[in-house]
């Protein structure tokens, strides 16, 4: 099971956090501090796993962004590495050549997508197409709702003039 997902930039800035196991706010900052310390200082050729407090943290670097997932001792690290990659590929599809800035400014969208990929700390959907379709439907609905809201507010605005 995945306990949490962290996206940390090379400078140690947090870009996204998702906690599937309960951690208090204090613990969260401690975890982030500890892990960014260990992971960011690791050399490029070392393995993508870090043993940490009886758990394992699998991380992968994409450009200047580190994707980290914390898993149980008995989980398959290579699989989690591919889950990370799976998520990144979906992000890439959605944003089109995703980059760190996409995730900074649209972090809520990254969250929505993550919610379609992982649920309750497990991989929910391994088909990229299915995820993409679902996210697109949600977006179109949101678009529609937005337009509706706009038109209503326009009407109200005109009426109150």
């Amino acid at each position, binding site marked *: 099971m995945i306990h949490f997902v962290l996206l940390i930039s*090379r400078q140690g800035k*947090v870009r*996204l*956090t*998702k906690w599937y196991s*309960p951690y*208090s*706010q204090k613990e*969260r900052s401690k975890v982030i501090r500890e892990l960014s310390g260990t992971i960011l200082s690791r050399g490029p*050729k*070392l*393995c*993508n*796993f870090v*043993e940490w*407090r009886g758990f394992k943290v699998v991380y*992968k*670097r*994409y*450009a*200047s*962004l580190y994707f980290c997932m914390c898993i149980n001792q008995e989980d*398959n*690290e*290579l*699989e989690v*590495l*591919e889950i990370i*990659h*799976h998520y990144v*590929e979906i992000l*890439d*599809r959605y944003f*089109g*050549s995703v*980059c*760190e*800035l*996409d995730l*900074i*400014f*649209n*972090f*809520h969208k990254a*969250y*929505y997508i993550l*919610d379609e990929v992982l*649920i*309750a700390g497990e991989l*929910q*959907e*391994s*088909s990229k*197409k*299915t995820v993409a379709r*679902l996210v697109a439907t*949600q977006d179109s*609905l*949101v678009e529609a*709702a937005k337009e509706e809201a706009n038109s209503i507010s326009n009407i109200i605005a005109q009426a109150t003039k």
Partner: protein
Amino acid sequence: MYACSEAHPYIRALTPENHKIHRTLSVISSLSSTSASVKPNRTHSSPNPFLTSLQLQPPLPQNLPQISTHLLNFLIYLQSPHPNPIHNPQLTLQINLEQLKTIGRELALGSHGSNFSQSKEFLDLVKSIGEARSKSEEDRIVIREIETLKRRINDPDTPKRKMKEYIIRLVYIEMLGHDASFGYIHAVKMTHDDSLFLKRTGYLAVTLFLNEDHDLIILIVNTIQKDLKSDNYLVVCAALNACCKLINEETIPAVVQQVVDLLGHAKEAVRKKAVMVLHRFFQKSPGSVNHLVSNFQKRLSDNDPGVMGATLFPLYDLITIDVNPYKDLVASFVNILKQVAERRLPKTYDYHQTPAPFIQIKLLKILALLGSGDKKSSEQMYTVIGDIMRKSDTASNIGNAILYECICCISSIQPSPKLLETAADAIANFLKSDSHNLKYMGIDALGRLIQISPDIAEQHQLAVIDCLEDPDDTLKRKTFELLYKMTKSSNVEVIVDRMIDYMISINDNHYKTETASRCVELAEQFAPSNHWFIQTMNKVFQHAGDLVNPKVAHNLMRLIAEGFGEDDDTADSQLRMSAVESYLKIVDEPKLPSAFLQVICWVLGEYGTADGKYSASYISGKLCDVAEAHSSDDTVKAYAVTALMKVYCFEKAAGRKTSLLPECQSLLEELSASHSADLQQRAYEFRAILDLDANAIENIMPLDASCEDIEIDTSLSFLDNYVQKAIEQGAEPYITENERSGTLNISKIRNHNAYENSTHSLRFEAYEVPKPVVPTKIPSTVTYPTDLVPVTATVSEPSYQPSVQPTWPLVPVSDAGSALGSTELKLRLDGVQKKWGKPTYSSGASSSSTSNFELDRTTVNGATKPDTAISKPREPRQSHAEVSEEKQKLAASLFGGRTSRSEKKQSGKVSRTTNHGEDKVQSATVTVPVTTAVQAQPHPPDLLDLGEPVGDTSSYSSTVDPFKQLEGLLDLSQDFNATAAGTSNGPDLMSLYSDTDTNGNPNQNLNPVNGSVNPSKKPALLTKGPSLKDALDKDALVRQMGVNPTGQNPNLFSDLLG
């Protein structure tokens, strides 16, 4: 636009490229106009990065930001192949790109304006935080932002759309580690909104903000209930997502029925999420969904592969808890796995050309559980596992993930010799790989496989030692774990020494503790001599004394007191004396951990003067020093005082003249006035005892009585007379606890824990009509202590619970028990005597079988035995000239010292300490008994299949599986192969190899296996070549594209240059 003012200088600076940029723009715009008609068909190997990504774009109007992204892509693309010829081109390039990137992005975001979901304010916030130079500057910005948000959010006139943005800003602030709790309630309110647009944001924020035990959860449950009933499946999905995070044990009953109903929803996305939600519920409170098992099984045959894949998660958990009810599913799982491997699933589930790998891995995990110790089930799996291993693509990461999972599965189910062979080959490939990840997995897999066939480690000794000395800490730790698993009495010294060195070198307390307890465990199990044991324990305690479990210290004292040999008194006293001696040497060192000092004090007090080597005044002087040097540690002082007391008592009881040392006198005075009542009492007792005569003292403080049992009369029968007398005088008789419970409810305290979970839960249904209170005495076992319902009233449970109630308290209890068992330090004191004292086997039957095997083996090797004994340990050194001498030595001591315990038994206890030197000679004699003896442990006999003929089992010991014995033979032959292949194939070794082949193996059917070892090694070496070349090619390509290879797929993020 604010971005433009910044943009100009850089664009000007790049004038030579300007025309290119313009051209790029026009190209892009022409592309984008056609992109709608281009079919999205993207492969990562596509040569044109931005053409392909453009094809991904949905409708045109949204394209603008992406177009600028691609503009940037292209700029980077243009730049990289011709790096600036000026000094330090790398740096200038970096800066330019960095700035360009920002400009492009901001252009995109700015021009997007109203379409972009956030306002400029938010962008400014993110930007300013991004530009903050220090943590304090960042904090200042965030605090200002919090102030703004507080003011605006609490303004009742804030329009909903604005509100949504504020909530997202709150999420951002919280993500940065600041407290945004003032806005939680607004996020909760947003989930109540009718429009999906706002609701989704609300749910997102709430799931990110709140833990399941937050007070606000109760306000959301109602909304979730309503949303689960919604007609819009997207609303249902959002609610289900929230369920996973927000619904806690208490609120599960409120939604569980609705979620179960959703299992039959028309949309597969909803079914899938419902399954996962139930899985989460099961993790939180197994009792709440126990009755749903059949639903999971039904979903396993869902039409949608996604739903089927999701069902595997709860099933895996259920099977982990109890395998038996699911044995009949083996065939279906195998069938599904086969279909998946044969690519029967839709293409969309393929991942990097591998068919549905994540589903395969989960299925393999389930099969591993189902096949464990079950021959019949295991046999059904052999074919499909073999197929998958053959098909898996070793060049890709995901292929290796599947391979690794197969190895795990193979090592868990009933072993199949053929599969073990394949697994060993796969491990060899992992270990040979250049990738640290694969090495790590290889070490892990090796650790699993050696539990079944211990000899496999032999072939990989050098690889393992390389990993042990690797600078990568993760790999090193994993290798230590492997060493821990393969420790035997022959290599325990080397391994534990290494582990202690490592333990001293690390700072991480968690792993220090773990390594320390592992050292202790190994030392207790395999210590070759008393002296070594004491030395090792000293080292562990010295460096990690305060980290190890206090129990370890107590066990050490007990071991010293009780000794290890069954009735060998001289050995015991030798052990004690060596302990005393080493402690006297150590005790003056500064900074000893408290736990270690306690052990030292106790041992010195108990045995310091026992053999008369040290005088009482010397020992007591040392003890006084300890008390003085650690004046702040009361526990140590208490131990020291009691030890002093013992020393003087033993002296006095023995009739020797004693006088208190002056420092001891002053210590006693100091402690008599101590703040600690415990210390005071000890001091006064000491004085009082000293005044008694020798006879009395001998009774109070008998010599070496720590091991004697103190009998405790729990019924307090010696008070019977007194009680009788009191009753005769009219006192009330004692009422037993059970009788009292009706009125006093003392049992409440005891039972509270067991029922806490079930009775503490909230109720979501109305109370029943109150019934007249019947004042009956309820037996303690059925009292429901609860805050909501009076104990005597009829307890009305929510409708789901009654069926669950009787079974459910057992679950957490047994869970806790097993968890406790696993976390507890495994100090098998009882086993130690057998394992350590004299290397004997626990049961007579197995030792007789091993001696049988010993005979077999000698006939097997026959004449070749002396040959191997001489040539084997030497040969590798000559051939592997490049491998350092030191490493070889280490390898020999780790792997070569394969003296079996049965040999030690023959050589007897005297030679036990000396035969370490002989290890090298004996190393060649690979004996099967070790294999069988070790194997017997992980598989208790009752797990073995019943289908075996009785005759078989009777001829060997009951714990020996004939299967494994066959394997033992196999491994033996394989072993020879390994050395033959591993070394330079010197002529004598080859002849030796053929020797064993012809006269060595009476079983003809083993020959094919032998034959297959060598060929299978060659492809393994070959496959490394092309993959390396591939990598180089890829690298070259990537460099040509001007992108640093940062991941496996360099095309991703190609627009971001670190």
